[in-house]
C-alpha cells in the first residue's frame, strides 16, 4: 500500500500530465486542450508556492547562521533578511508597480545583475589566456578559430583588411552551425528518450529510492 502511494501514484501523475501535454499538440479534442491549459495554470500556482518555499529556505539557512553566530557570516545574514523582508513588505502592501518598489529594484537588483554580467567579461579574458595555448593540434584549432572570430568582430577591421574580417563570420556561419546542429540533434534524441522513459515510469530519479 505504502509503496503504491509513495511510488506508483507520483509515477502515474507524471505520466498522465506528460501525455496530456503531448496530446494537446495534436489537437485531439477540446477537453484535452482545456484540461492541459488548466494543468499549466496549476503549475504556475505550484511554482508560486515553490518560490515561497525558496524564501522560507533562505530564511531558515540564515536564521541558523545568526543563531550559531557563524564567524564572519552572521551580521551579513541579518542584512540579507532585513532586505528580503523589506521587499516582501513593500511588494505585498504597495504592489510591485509602486514607486517605492521600483526604486528598490532599480537601485539593487538591476545594477547588481548588470555588474555580475560584467564580471563575465573579465572571466572570459582570464579563461582565454589559459585555454588559448597551442598545446596540441586540438588546442590550435580551438584557439585559431576563436582569434579569427575576435578579429572579425573588431569594428574597424573592414577598413584594414576586408578579407581577414570575413573569416570570423564564415566560421560562425558554416562549420560552427553544422557542428552545433549535429550536437543538438543527438542531444534532442537523448531528451526524447529520457522523456519517454519518464512517461513509462522507468526514470525514477525524482522519486528517491523507496
Amino acid at each position, binding site marked *: 500500500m505504502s509503496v503504491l502511494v509513495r511510488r506508483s501514484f507520483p509515477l502515474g501523475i507524471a505520466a498522465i500530465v506528460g501525455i496530456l501535454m503531448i496530446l494537446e499538440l495534436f489537437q485531439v479534442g477540446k477537453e484535452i486542450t482545456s484540461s492541459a491549459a488548466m494543468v499549466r495554470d496549476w503549475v504556475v500556482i505550484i511554482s508560486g508556492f515553490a518560490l515561497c518555499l525558496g524564501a522560507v529556505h533562505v530564511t531558515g539557512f540564515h536564521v541558523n547562521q545568526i543563531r550559531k553566530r557563524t564567524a564572519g557570516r552572521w551580521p551579513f545574514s541579518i542584512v540579507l533578511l532585513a532586505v528580503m523582508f523589506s521587499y516582501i513588505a513593500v511588494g505585498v502592501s504597495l504592489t510591485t508597480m509602486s514607486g517605492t518598489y521600483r526604486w528598490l529594484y532599480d537601485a539593487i537588483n538591476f545594477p547588481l545583475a548588470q555588474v555580475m554580467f560584467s564580471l563575465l567579461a573579465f572571466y572570459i579574458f582570464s579563461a582565454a589566456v589559459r*585555454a588559448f595555448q597551442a598545446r596540441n593540434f586540438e588546442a590550435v584549432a580551438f584557439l585559431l578559430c576563436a582569434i579569427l572570430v575576435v578579429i572579425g568582430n573588431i569594428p574597424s577591421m573592414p577598413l584594414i583588411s576586408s578579407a581577414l574580417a570575413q573569416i570570423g563570420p564564415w566560421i560562425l556561419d558554416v562549420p560552427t552551425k553544422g557542428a552545433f546542429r549535429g*550536437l543538438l540533434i543527438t542531444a534532442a534524441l537523448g531528451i526524447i528518450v*529520457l522523456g519517454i522513459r519518464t512517461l513509462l515510469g522507468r526514470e525514477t530519479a525524482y522519486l528517491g529510492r523507496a
Partner: protein
Amino acid sequence: MLKVGNFGTFYLLLFLFVLTLLSIWLVRSKGMKVHVRRLAGIDAINEAIGRATELARPVHFTTGTMATLYGEEGPQILAGLSILSHIASQTAKYRTPLVVTVCHPSTLPLAEEIVRESYLKEGRADEFRPDMVRHLSTEQQAYASGVQGIFLREKVAANFMIGPLYADTLIIAETGYRVGAMQVGGTGTKTVQLPFLVAVCDYTLIGEEIFAAGAYISQNPEQLATMFAEDIAKFAVIALVLIGAIVTLFSKELLSLLKL
C-alpha cells in the same frame, strides 16, 4: 486530427517510443547485453571526489540556473540530478562534505530527496544534514554571486555543473579554477556555454553525454539498452539526412532539366 506541421513530431516520437520499448523487451526476455564505450568525463567524477576526500574539502554540485523542472529544459535537469545521486552516494561513502546549490526552488525538494536517499542507501542517514542542499536565489546573477562566495569561503575542491547551463556558468567555473577545484561540466542543448566548459573545466560532458551518464554510471542493463535505442535512432537520422540530400540534389537537377 493531425496538423501537417506536427506530422514529423508525431512520427519521430512514435519511432523512438517503439525503439525504447523494443530495447527494453530485448533486455528483459532475450537477455541482450549492451556495452557502452568509455566516457572520460564521467570517470573523472570519481577522481574528483577522491581528491576532495583527500583534501577534506567540499564537493559542489549544481544543475545550473534559469531553467525550471516544469519547462522544456526539465529533462536536462533530471539528467543532472541522476548524476547527483551517484555523487551523493560517493560523498556519503567517503564522508566527503557535499554542497548542492539550487537556483529555481522547484528543484529544491527533488535535490534534497535525492541526496537524503543516497545517504540512506549508504547507511549514513545520520550524516545527512539539511544544509547540504542550499537554495541560494532564484535570480540567476544573485545565485552566481552566492556560489562565488561559497567557493572562496569554503574552499571547494571539486565542482560539478551538469544540466541546462546559462551565462553564469563561466562565473562559477572561473571561480572554481581560482580555488583550485577539479571541475567537470556538462550541458545538453546550451551550445553557447559549452566553449567555456571546454576551456575551463578539466572534463566536459558534451550534449548527449549528460543523458548517457546515468546509464553509464549505474550499468543498469535496461538503461544501457535505451542507449542502444538512441544509437539506432542516430543511424536512422544520419540515413535520413543522406537520403534527403540525394533527393534534393536530384530534384534540383530534374527541375533545371525541365526548365531547359
